[in-house]
């Protein structure tokens, strides 16, 4: 009896060992981005990846793949400040931090904190605020490290089901947590959360997992089941098909946002908060879609 047990233990160990051995391969993310600006301000040509007031980046380093989205808070337009400047500069700075290896993969909050610090180091007197979500895949350990401040977010989908997702952080309805630089004198008036307030999590990913990172423009207009339906169409793990799926998700969200009769998740949530709202929520939409694949040079 005892020998059988110990034998079984040996077998189990061998199997587990074999599994963990199979996992010595490095993983990486195949990512594509797509999005829409709320209104078609095509006149302003912006550097980098910006959709309206949203901005995003995809960057790689020798041990990690990093994605980020940021949603510039539109209210600043009333003060004569272009809201996209803040989010775009934040994302560009984070991208540089990653490319130059000034971060540890296990701490995406660190990227956000130093990114925000660098904004203050800019000669340009930046103003504005933004939500932010950063996702890091550690290639070696296969762990996904994330941080999220505000109402942007991400989903990890495995086998057609959501296995991990970000938590939304709101002060109150439609007022997410946000990083901000306020004009002098208005520091107490403007909502400003520290980068450390971001919600962090770590999650082990497997080959074939799909990670969808997006701003609230997507999540407010598309419920999970619609997103999952679209993701089912993703069959191959190459850049083109990932981009195609990202496009179709973003397009669908965009169409729904301008449908006055559609009961969007945003409208649902508004009704829960005692506001009588129907229809989609016109907003900037940014979709970053990634698939976990084996790392190849």
């Amino acid at each position: 009896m005892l020998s059988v047990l110990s034998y079984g233990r040996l077998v189990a160990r061998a199997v587990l060992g074999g599994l963990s051995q199979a996992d010595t391969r490095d993983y990486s993310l195949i990512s594509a981005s797509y999005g829409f600006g709320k209104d078609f301000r095509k006149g302003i040509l912006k550097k980098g990846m910006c959709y309206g007031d949203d901005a995003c980046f995809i960057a790689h380093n020798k041990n990690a793949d990093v994605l980020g989205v940021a949603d510039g808070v539109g209210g600043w337009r009333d003060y004569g400040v272009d809201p996209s400047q803040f989010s775009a500069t934040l994302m560009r700075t984070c991208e540089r931090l990653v490319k130059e290896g000034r971060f540890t993969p296990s701490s995406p909050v660190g990227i956000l904190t130093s990114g925000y610090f660098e904004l203050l180091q800019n000669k340009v007197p930046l103003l504005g605020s933004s939500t932010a979500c950063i996702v890091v895949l550690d290639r070696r350990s296969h762990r996904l490290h994330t941080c999220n401040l505000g109402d942007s977010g991400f989903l990890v989908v495995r086998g057609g089901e959501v296995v991990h997702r970000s938590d939304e952080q709101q002060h109150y309805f439609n007022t997410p947590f946000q990083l901000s630089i306020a004009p002098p004198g208005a520091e107490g008036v403007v909502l400003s959360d520290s980068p450390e307030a971001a919600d962090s999590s770590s999650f082990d990913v497997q080959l074939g997992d799909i990670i969808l990172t997006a701003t609230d423009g997507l999540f407010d207009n598309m419920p999970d089941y619609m997103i999952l339906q679209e993701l089912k169409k993703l069959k191959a793990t190459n850049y083109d098909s990932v981009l195609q799926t990202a496009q179709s998700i973003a397009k669908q969200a965009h169409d729904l946002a301008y449908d006055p009769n559609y009961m969007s998740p945003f409208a649902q949530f508004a009704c829960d908060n005692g506001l009588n709202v129907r229809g989609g929520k016109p907003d900037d939409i940014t979709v970053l879609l990634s698939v976990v694949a084996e790392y190849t040079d």
Partner: protein
Amino acid sequence: MLTLMSMFYYICLRRRSRSGTRGEALTSRRAVESGQRAVLPVSVEVEQYAKEVLDFSSHYGSENSMSYTMWNLAGVPNVYPSSGDFTQTAVFRAYGKWWEQCASAPPPFRRTPKGFHSQDYIELGFEEPVYPTAVDVLETYYPGAIVQIMACSHNPFSQNPPTDVRWEVLWSGEPTKVLTPQARQFSPNIKHINFPTNLLRIEVNSSLLDYYTELDAVILRGVKERPMLARYKMPIIDINDLSDSEEELSDLGGPFRQGGEAKRTGNGYFDKLPYELIQLILSHLTLPDLCRLAQSCKLLHQHCCDPLQYTQLSLQPYWGRLTDVSLGHLQSRCTLLQRLNLSWIGNRGALTLTGFSSFMKACGQSLGSLELSCCHFLNEPCLEVISQTCPGLQELNLSSCDRLQPQAFTHISKLTRLRRLVLYRTKIEQTAILSVLTFCTELRHLNLGSCVRIDDYDVVASMLAARCYSLRSLDLWRCRNLTDRGLAELVTGCRMLEELDLGWCPTLQSSTGCFQHLARNLPRLRKLFLTANRTVCDSDVEELAASCPSLQHLDILGTRLVSPASLKKLLQACPRLLLLDLSFCSQIDMRVVQELSGLFPNVAIKKSFTQ
């Protein structure tokens, strides 16, 4: 017998080595000739960006950031071919002649050679050692500052300690004034050298530029195989080598002294000249010339070794060749030394504690000024030696000695007669600076820029106010936490302040009235930097206009709250104004700057741009 044997052996050895080199030269010539006929072996040119920034003398950015810091020069370009004032580039701390005009700037050293223009430098390590064929520097804003590019024989990434460190000039030139701020690729014709290198040094002089120069990336092109031309080249004997000529000189000293007296008239009428006149003539020579001249005849030897010729000694231009040995040779002549410049010297093992301390013991007695910027050989015992051997030291510059341990700075407090102290980019800590301020009460000029280890600048400011009444200039560039409380105490205590640099001090809030209080208390103010303080507003500028008529330099970069009207008042009220930096002030556009420049042509009004 033994000596005879060894002499014979020595001669044989020399023969063999000489014939060896000759033979080698011949074969290489043959190789060149045959190479012209046959197909030359294809040597692949390697192109690489800098891998790492190893050392630099100053930068605009803060120590823990990547905006405007020298570390941006490593890696691929971030900005090029765009032009403009961007965070992603490498920017030095100063430009133009503004910094030299200030009272806090030390007077230039006599005998600085005409060809030496360098003010700042940066050293870059590359992955693979190559025989350089070209060096490209991508300059993205106000180009033209580079005056010298050098290559080093030492591999900075090797584990072995540096031996036989040689620096060779690849290119050198005069500082130039390029009229446009547009980006350019600077690709000078470089000299070919006979060793592979992966360590480049770029030296700059920004004094003719209209604004900060910005560098984006450096490309080193070269071949891994030694090119034919370099192999064929005759070795150049470096006659500038101080230590060699010094050695010869000490050998020759003996015979001259014995046989010289009899042939006194051999100098013609020259030695009829008064001693002082010859001394005056010699005072125009550079140091290597002086050393060479000392070898020519006994009379000139005597003149050239006169300690009065060595009251000021700037060895900075010879940083690449100076070692313990050369200091040892100079030691006997420098007994009356008053000002010594050892900046940039002694790195990679060239100077040691022994050499430095023996020189200081011999020559430190009357030393008043000591420049030791970027001297990474310095350690705690070195500073202890300085504090013991230089009782009368009035000026000490330790800027960018960023490897000097914090505890070393405690020795500075023993130099109680200090008047100028530069601690820019050092690791000095709170306790050390407080003890320095307690004992060095005669301080006139203090630079604490980018000292990241000081915890509470308010305490430092109130200590300054309590002890150093005669402070004229204070540099607190990028201090983290000075508040209105500290500033108020400072300006109440140090009423003689003429220069105040509060650039990038984000914790100062104009709403507390601290800048107006400052202006009212410092009527003698000539230079004020409030760079990137977002709270500077119209009432601050107007108070400056009302209270500080002798203002010469003002920097209020990056505020949204200053309007053209208040600036006009300032320009009218301050007739001596020379520099006004209004970059990134969002209310001031190019049109306003042009209008103001037209009205006040004597003021250099700066406004930089990003594309």
